[in-house]
């Protein structure tokens, strides 16, 4: 469903994403992990068609996003890490607007928007301007908007930031159910427990390159002996020196 071939993004002399090859098949929830500045957001924004790759190819449902962006994007829903949306629209109007971007409207969309808002406890707020929403509520509204047009693929950057425990649980269930129905999700997160419990496969990126990729069992094998949980594996693969240096900093 998502296929990246030699995907590269350079900003001047700095290479943010370096020759990534990756494939996420239909019905899979893929977790994308990595330290800050590793290239996760850049990769996801390239897949969403916001950034243009310097080199390489991105296919969404078999369609090249650079060659035929409109066809590829119509299969896609994107949830960014920062919930910037139109402050002067109401929640319901925002969902309707997003559906309109995908050329969808009418009673079926109104019904679906209402159901999504109800799912995330936003129904009471549907006619209120977004400017009065909290950070978490905006995040929930953006998540709803990514589902409103029934995309085949969802690309999501840090979905749990700002969500209350109930919304986080709903989102996890939603993601699971969504992939069970044959759709694909690629998600970046720093919450390792979420990645461990939710993802079918996990990729770890550092310095713009994929360091490891596979199921939890495969990652365990890749990491050195003794690494059982994802946190251990993550630190082993991305360098645990930083964590050790903590003590030195606090004692300084």
């Amino acid at each position, binding site marked *: 469903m998502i296929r990246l071939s030699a995907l590269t993004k350079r900003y001047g002399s700095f290479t943010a994403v370096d020759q990534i090859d990756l494939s996420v098949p239909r019905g899979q929830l893929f977790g994308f992990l990595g330290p800050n500045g590793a290239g996760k957001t850049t990769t996801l924004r390239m897949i969403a068609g916001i950034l243009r790759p310097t080199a390489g190819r991105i296919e969404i449902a078999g369609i090249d996003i650079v060659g035929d962006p*409109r066809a590829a994007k119509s299969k*896609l829903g*994107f949830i960014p890490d920062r919930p*910037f*949306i139109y402050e002067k629209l109401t929640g319901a*109007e925002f969902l309707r*607007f997003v559906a309109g971007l995908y050329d969808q409207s009418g009673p079926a969309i109104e019904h679906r928007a209402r159901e999504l808002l109800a799912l995330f406890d936003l129904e009471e707020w549907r006619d209120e301007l977004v400017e009065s929403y909290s950070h978490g509520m905006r995040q929930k509204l953006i998540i709803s908007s990514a589902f409103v047009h029934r995309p085949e693929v969802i690309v999501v950057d840090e979905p749990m930031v700002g969500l209350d425990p109930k919304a986080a649980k709903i989102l996890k269930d939603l993601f699971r159910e969504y992939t069970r129905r044959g759709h694909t999700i690629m998600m970046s997160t720093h919450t390792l427990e979420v990645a461990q419990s939710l993802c079918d496969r996990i990729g770890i990126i550092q310095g713009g390159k994929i360091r490891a990729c596979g199921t939890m069992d495969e990652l365990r094998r890749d990491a050195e002996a003794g690494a059982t949980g994802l946190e251990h594996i993550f630190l082993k693969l991305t360098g645990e020196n930083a964590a050790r240096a903590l003590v030195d900093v606090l004692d300084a």
Partner: protein
Amino acid sequence: MLDFVSVDEPRRPDPSLFHLLRPKVLTARAKAMAGERGRTARWLVLAIFGVLFWAFIFGVVFRLLKYFRGVPEIGPLLAGKLLGLILVGFFSILLLSNVITALSSFFLARDLDLLVAGPVDWLKLYGAKLMETLVHSSWMVLLMAIPLFAAYGVVYEGGWFFPFIVAGLLGPFLLLPAAIGSAITLLLVNIFPARRTRDILSVIAILTASGVVLLFRLVRPERFAKPEGFRSLVDFITLLRTPTSPLLPSEWVQRATMSWLTYKTDLLPWYLLWSTAASAVVLGAALHWRLYPQGFSKAQESAQRWARSGWFSRVADRALAPLGVLRRELVLKEVRLFFRDTTQWSQLLLLAVLVVVYVFNIKFLPLKGDGMTFFLRNVVPFLNLVLAGFVLASIAARFIFPGVSLEGRTLWLLRSSPMSIRDLLWSKFWVGTLPLLILALLIVGVTNYLLQVSVFMFMVSIVTIAAMTLALAGLALGFGTLFPQFETENAAQIPTSFGGLLFMMASVAVIGGVVILEARPVYGYLHARAFGSPSDVTEMVAGFGLAGALCLLSTLVPIKVALRRLQAIER
């Protein structure tokens, strides 16, 4: 000397005023030094434009003052009156702009969480924010004041010390409205939530500005230039001698300036100015100490605002159905965002007043009676096109130019959707252009009716203004996309950016170009009508054809360039 801090007690951190202002200074420096492509060219254009602007103001005031200086007795009185009038205008602008800026700098700025949560002394916070407010709201007035006072200094031979005198007067003159404006905002925020206050303030500001413009027009200041309109010279001199308002700081600055320039010693205005400014700052600080904590806390509350628009959606859905789902939703979004943002729609009030004043001026032009030929009556509406063009360009700068910049933070949504950027740009173009076109046709139609022009001139001006409107809208959208201000928090600041300046310059060039190209055929036609000779058809086709081509190119080329630029923007 006694040290009140005991040995055991740890020293309290106390960041200085300069430390609080440092991030702003560093940000300004980083912006100025940013090594962007074309930076030198930008500065060069700005410098040329700035020098031209200064030279223009200096030239106008210089000529006026030269004339006044040649008039015995009432010359200095007229010069003083003129300075007083300009300074009253400056003071009102300063007060309004300080009230609005203080709302951002004291209550809504992003750095406030850090400063209020930190161990910052309240007085230093007040001082830092007052300075910030003062700089943000006064720089433009200061830039305009420089050539004004320079002209006074040159004409009245103020001497090498005159700039220091002016600096000594302008300091408290700028500080006073900053302190008063901040205090007014502080009181308002304690009564209303900050976000509501912003809405209320923008409406108050616009209404006040509209009122000032209307009042100024109704007073008909041009009669001051015609002493023969007064019953006697004594009446005229009495009017000139009466201070505009003895309690206004603008009057004090005027008196102090003129007393220096006419070699009379008058220290009272200096005393009044400095003591009032100092008192205002002290009182402002006291109010800040008493009311700021609760005001800041209230400012964090967001207003709950419901926006049910059932009937509007139903009507708009049907009316816009032929556009298709995507375009309909884009247009609806633009309309909703505009009318729900008080700071945006309230400017329509000012616009309405400007149009009324414009029509009022045309109505009272002395174009009837003796000596007014058919020729003159038809040339005026042609020149009217230039003025209407400028009005439309400034409206386009305010409403169409910021369109793409305002999408900055939500560009991720549009970029990740299958919508084409072309659709987005054209929806912005038409949503902005249609109201502008209606306004343009209305202004030109009504003024032409009042001027009773010939059918030919009526048609020429209507078609020209329509084509010119499309060109101005295209330029506004093009320059707005080429020079976007994605990070700005205040939409009102976008047109005053470098790109806004370039847009205005390009607009002036297009308006001038169209009028110059049409001048020859229009003159030829009027000449032929007046003297009964045949019109030159080739000349008319060439002139109007080239003007039409210029408008068409100015509409399409900027949009094409904008499209390419927007597709390349990565956000």
